[in-house]
């Protein structure tokens, strides 16, 4: 069987996979990282979003073999080693940006990429557009948008915009 060598949350792994093994299957079934969810399995809902070499990707629509040699970050790798939450996780808690929580790992990973890729500022419109690939069936998105807006200054060490 072919092998994939990749870094996940800072740890090196070499895993045997089939050609058809998806990245999300490698993460969940081979590495036991079940924080990354499979929602629609049709690349629409975004529950499976992880970062591949620093940018968001839908891990249900990527072969594990395509991730060979890459650096993958999942929801499990976001908090600090001592358990301190990432500012985005903290703001999701602060603003009650989840109800059932199923979409949350993908939402948080998309949100972190969105904030990282907008160092000059992030409007509410940009946040809503940036979340088009992430579906939530509970919250109506409002608190998610608030949480992301609140996380932006924390992640960029700037004062909150009015």
């Amino acid at each position, binding site marked *: 069987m*072919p092998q994939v060598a990749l870094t996940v949350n800072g740890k090196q792994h070499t895993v045997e996979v*089939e*050609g*058809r093994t*998806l990245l999300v299957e490698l993460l969940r079934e081979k590495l036991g990282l079940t924080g990354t969810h499979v929602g629609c*399995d*049709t*690349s*629409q809902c*975004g529950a499976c*979003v992880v970062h*591949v070499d620093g*940018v*968001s*990707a*839908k891990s249900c*629509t*990527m*072969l594990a*073999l*395509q991730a*060979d040699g890459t650096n993958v970050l999942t929801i499990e790798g976001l908090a600090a080693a001592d358990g301190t939450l990432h500012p985005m996780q903290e703001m999701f808690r602060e603003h009650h940006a989840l109800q059932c929580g199923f979409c949350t790992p993908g939402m948080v990973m*998309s949100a972190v*990429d*969105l904030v990282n890729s907008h160092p000059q500022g992030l409007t509410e419109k940009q946040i809503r557009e*940036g979340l*088009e*690939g*992430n579906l939530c069936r509970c919250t109506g998105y409002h608190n998610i948008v608030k949480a992301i807006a609140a996380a932006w200054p924390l992640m960029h060490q700037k004062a909150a915009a009015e």
Partner: protein
Amino acid sequence: MYDFAYQKPSSLADAVKALSADPDAKALAGGMTLIPVLKQRLNKPSLLVDLAKLGLVGITVSGNTVTIAGMTTHGAVAADAGLKSKIPSLSEMASFIGDEAVRHRGTIGGSLANNDPAADYPAAVLALDATIKTDRRSIKGDDFFQGMFTTTLEQGELITAVEFPAPEKGAYEKFRNPASRYAIVGVYVAKTAGGVRVAVTGAGQGGVFRHTAMEQALSANFSPDAIANITTPVDGLNSDIHASAEYRAHLVGVMAKRAVARAY
């Protein structure tokens, strides 16, 4: 998904060779369409040849021509400053394909080779009179698309780049499906040196097409009023759960007028 063999060659020649040797082999670009298709078992390739290591990435501006390498992602196209200054309507179009995560992986070459009847890039290639470069030849956009999911590409032939001449002005207007974000109808209008070109995606059963009646009217008078009374024949338009053929015909007119009004 049925299983398949997988290769990631590091040269274009090796990729072409692997694909040409096996009629059941398929090229894998970003995978944003191919992987969902494989999941539905609509296709059963013996071998996937991943094009990620061929170095076919990047955007160059030379005079009035913008060349986009085949494996350049939609996100990179949308973000490129050189393209934005030469053909802003094309960079805007790329910024509305799929969603953020899809744009990080989906590629221009993959989209064109697949020729989905509701994809955005085919409209850009036709409207902007682009040329598709492959490992063996140059193909004009007008000759490339051969109907839904069909192109003039031969087995094993790979898109290496797409050359876009900058128009005087242009705009793409898309009425999109809110779930899939594909075009229910998309119209790209471009005012080029050779006249006005109008390309319609999402509407035709045969895939992307040029709207010659609108092109003639707009070449004489580039204003929304010039096409206000031009109707689009319903024959040959798609009808599905998202929109009837009649509704699509109506949308073609609305999107075209908006594109003309907004051309920049």
